């Protein structure tokens, strides 16, 4: 089959305006006759649910936490980009578009990214009107900073808690619509399946996490706003319960999964310190503005402690980023910084007890600018680091290591954010559309809110308007009963295994396989091996999983097992995709495809496409459909940071 991206014709800058005019409208009096199911209420879901309800649709919204305010969007620190050009430093919609396309290593759609840049400015207006307390100058106007190596200051921020404030803004809009009765909010309910009738999405099946009750919810359209799947690696910067199940269930019901191997590995996280570790903590990448990254030159100093590092003479240190990338130095993009950290650790020059860490040293910055200046810039981050590690970054260098942070891949969607299953949409990190092979800093918040506030409210009309009026979706259709039965069957099966390994035991094994073979650096043999290992692990899971209790209670072990079962399949698809894409691009580094200097080498002739994978049935290889990317407004170049 071929995939219809539905990108409007015409000049890039006019596509969205024209499209908004061309999409079908639903009469205001008729909107109330339709119900939209929204799964996940982070930035994308909360903004979509609130806005659709304001337009008059009935919304049924779901989250598995006890409040929409808990969604992991809340943890984003740095900020949100917008092409406001308030700083008069040469920013524009086109520049934000260009930076995002280039940063994504030319693996995203021009039209989608341009639209994202266009609506970015409206997002800031909307958030300010809601009362989001962005940082301001003494003149009372909004402050901006440069972020993630951008050459203009276009990042809006609220201290180090931008994600929190934007989510609370969207949550307030959602709360307002819950209060009017237009949104019915379901808390602590997790989606187990998408229900399709005659090939179109008609609702979902959920499990009540408190009572275990499995029930159906019908809607004329279903929006999956369920975030990314970084937790396939077990350890990531994602929240503990973040999972890929909604997207995976959609995949198994016919939705294509695009570019699953595109994973962002963030260079500045606190390193792993033990087997008991539950998650990894991100340290803002703004630290690289003043910190110098280094490891010892000599392998004999491997595993040197931070306290001893202070005494190591300058000539025995290798400031490897400054050495290899004289013009960008410590500010190279995330993927380059991460890969280099792995390389020096693989060489046996890593530091700290595990040897899987590099130093981020502020001694020179403190000497140059004084402790007070550094404290003013990074005080809260230094405190957080000390809280976690018990080391004081004012006295000894920080230790950092890369960690899984974001997944650019996700459900394939067209320009309307519709998956290839009619009536099923994917928004925010759950879709694949805007970040290509690498996401720029401060762009995730922008995309989530763009999709929810400003894209889906227009584009969903195009589908809703085609539905027969006055026809309620009917939960009594046998498809709902079948989906409920299948979900119950899955749970019964897992509870009946009665093996010896806990979900965490098995999840850690999966994480090791993914990190080793499908992490920062990938090769053909490793990926082939990983596929076999994952298949074996699935067998082990089905034979040896240990659960306790029943479905009809609060059972967090069962919740973990259900998410893990999906990760065990999704992980294999990531490996298959990484194997297929034998080029390097963005966060996907194939060892077979590198320049003489060891940098990522894209192969535009062969791989200038979106890899959209379709489910072909149990035990069968997935089917690949290629959506070729067309670049009419930017010239494809090889990134260089030398």
């Amino acid at each position, binding site marked *: 089959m071929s995939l219809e991206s539905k990108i409007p014709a015409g000049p890039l800058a006019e596509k969205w305006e024209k499209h908004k005019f061309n999409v079908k409208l639903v009469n205001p009096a008729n909107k109330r006759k339709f119900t939209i199911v929204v799964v996940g209420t982070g930035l994308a879901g909360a903004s979509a649910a609130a806005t659709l309800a304001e337009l008059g649709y009935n919304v049924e919204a779901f989250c598995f*936490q006890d409040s929409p305010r808990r969604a992991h969007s809340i943890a984003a620190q740095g900020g949100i980009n917008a092409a406001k050009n308030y700083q008069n430093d040469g920013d524009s919609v086109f520049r934000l578009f260009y930076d995002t396309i280039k940063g994504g290593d030319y693996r995203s759609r021009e039209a989608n990214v341009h639209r994202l840049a266009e609506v970015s400015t409206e997002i800031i207006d909307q958030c300010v009107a*809601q009362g989001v307390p962005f940082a301001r100058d003494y003149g009372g*106007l*909004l402050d901006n900073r440069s972020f993630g190596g951008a050459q203009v200051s276009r990042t809006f921020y*609220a201290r180090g808690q931008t994600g929190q404030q934007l989510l*609370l803004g969207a949550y307030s*809009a959602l709360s307002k619509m819950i209060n009017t009765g237009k949104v019915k909010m379901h808390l602590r309910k997790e989606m187990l399946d998408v229900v399709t009738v005659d090939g179109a999405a008609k609702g979902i099946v959920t499990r009540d996490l408190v009572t275990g009750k499995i029930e159906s919810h019908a809607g004329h359209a279903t929006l999956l706003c369920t975030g990314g799947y970084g937790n396939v690696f077990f350890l990531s910067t994602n929240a503990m319960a973040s999972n890929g199940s909604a997207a995976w269930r959609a995949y198994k019901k016919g939705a294509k999964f695009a570019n699953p191997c595109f994973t962002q590995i963030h260079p500045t996280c606190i390193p792993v310190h033990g087997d008991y570790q539950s998650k990894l903590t991100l340290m803002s990448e703004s630290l690289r503005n003043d910190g110098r990254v280094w490891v010892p030159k000599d392998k004999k100093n491997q595993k040197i402690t931070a306290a001893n590092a202070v005494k190591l003479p300058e000539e025995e240190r290798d400031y490897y980023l400054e050495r290899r990338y004289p013009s960008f130095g410590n500010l190279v993009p995330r993927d380059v910084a991460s890969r280099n950290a792995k390389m020096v650790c693989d060489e046996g020059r890593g530091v700290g007890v595990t040897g899987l860490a590099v130093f981020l040293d502020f001694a020179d910055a403190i000497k140059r600018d004084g402790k007070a200046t550094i404290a003013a810039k990074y005080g809260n981050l230094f405190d*957080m680091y000390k809280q976690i590690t018990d080391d004081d970054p004012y006295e000894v260098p920080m230790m950092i290591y890369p960690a899984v942070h974001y997944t650019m891949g996700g459900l394939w969607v067209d320009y309307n954010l519709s998956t290839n299953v009619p009536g099923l949409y994917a928004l925010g990190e759950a879709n694949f559309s805007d970040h290509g092979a690498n996401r720029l800093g401060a762009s995730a918040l922008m995309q989530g809110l763009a999709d929810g506030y400003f894209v889906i409210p227009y584009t969903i009309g195009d589908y809703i308007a085609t539905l027969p009026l006055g026809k309620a979706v009917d939960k009594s259709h046998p498809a709902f009963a079948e989906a409920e039965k299948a979900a119950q069957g899955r749970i019964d099966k897992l509870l009946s295994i009665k093996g010896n390994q806990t979900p*965490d035991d098995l999840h850690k094994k999966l994480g090791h396989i993914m990190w080793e073979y499908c992490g920062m650096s990938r090769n053909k043999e490793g990926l082939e091996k990983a596929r076999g290992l994952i298949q074996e692990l699935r067998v082990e899971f089905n034979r040896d999983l240990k659960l306790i209790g029943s479905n009809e209670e609060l059972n967090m072990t069962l919740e973990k097992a259900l998410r893990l079962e999906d990760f065990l399949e999704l992980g294999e698809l990531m490996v298959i995709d990484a194997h297929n894409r034998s080029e390097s691009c963005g966060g996907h580094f194939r060892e077979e495809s590198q320049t003489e200097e060891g940098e990522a080498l894209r192969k535009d002739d062969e791989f200038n496409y979106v890899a959209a994978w379709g489910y072909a049935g149990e035990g069968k290889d997935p089917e690949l459909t290629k959506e070729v990317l067309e670049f009419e407004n930017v010239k494809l170049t090889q990134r260089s940071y030398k």
Partner: protein
Amino acid sequence: MAGETINIKLKIWRQAGQGKPGKFESYEVNDVSVDMSFLEMLDVLNENELKKGNDPVHFDHDCREGICGMCSLYINGKPHGPKHGITTCQLHMRTFKNGETIVVEPWRASAFPVLKDLMVDRTAFERIQQAGGYVTISTGGVPDANEIAIPKTVADEAMDAAQCIGCGACVAACKNASAMLFTAAKVSQLAVLPQGKAERKRRALAMLEQHDSEGFGACTNTGACEAVCPKEISITHIARLNREFTRAAFSGSETDYTN
């Protein structure tokens, strides 16, 4: 110090479900790395218990970076444990001594019924937000973000209040189980900002009415909430909430309610 381990004893509140009887159970966890977070220590306990065929201790948690507000826990008589200005997930085992007994309880407040073990139902907070914790605007059609200048000090004060993570420690610490600090944080944020001024009267009245109807107690200014708040939100916001309420209650209409 890295590599150091301790042995600890735990007394944990176990309760099978809402309205069911509960009791303290004792546990021992040995060889606990001092670098572990408190929740990672509980993960280890739970893995051990699960392998023994026992139901793990249920507790709420998610981001584990101190921002989602999901984790709770009353540790040795204090919400979020003995340290100041952090959530439970940011508490590390180096805070405790070898051989120490640590008592772990859920939030205790009648408006926060226990769901299981250490998990409580905080949806009362949702309903307080829904009563008026917003600016009534729709998406689109709003002025340019820089159209209204807001003094930096005002924006900073709004941000101080807006940092609330809705964890409920304030309620758990309060002898009256009052949620005034939580309610004040939202009312105060929107009362100081120009965007929130149009609805000041109805917001203060509606949110407080909801607060009281949920069964939260009144504020008697003991300051326990401020002392345990992981985001260090000041009770001066409660003073502002009281002013907002008084003004709202004594003013006849919104007509002369302009600043």
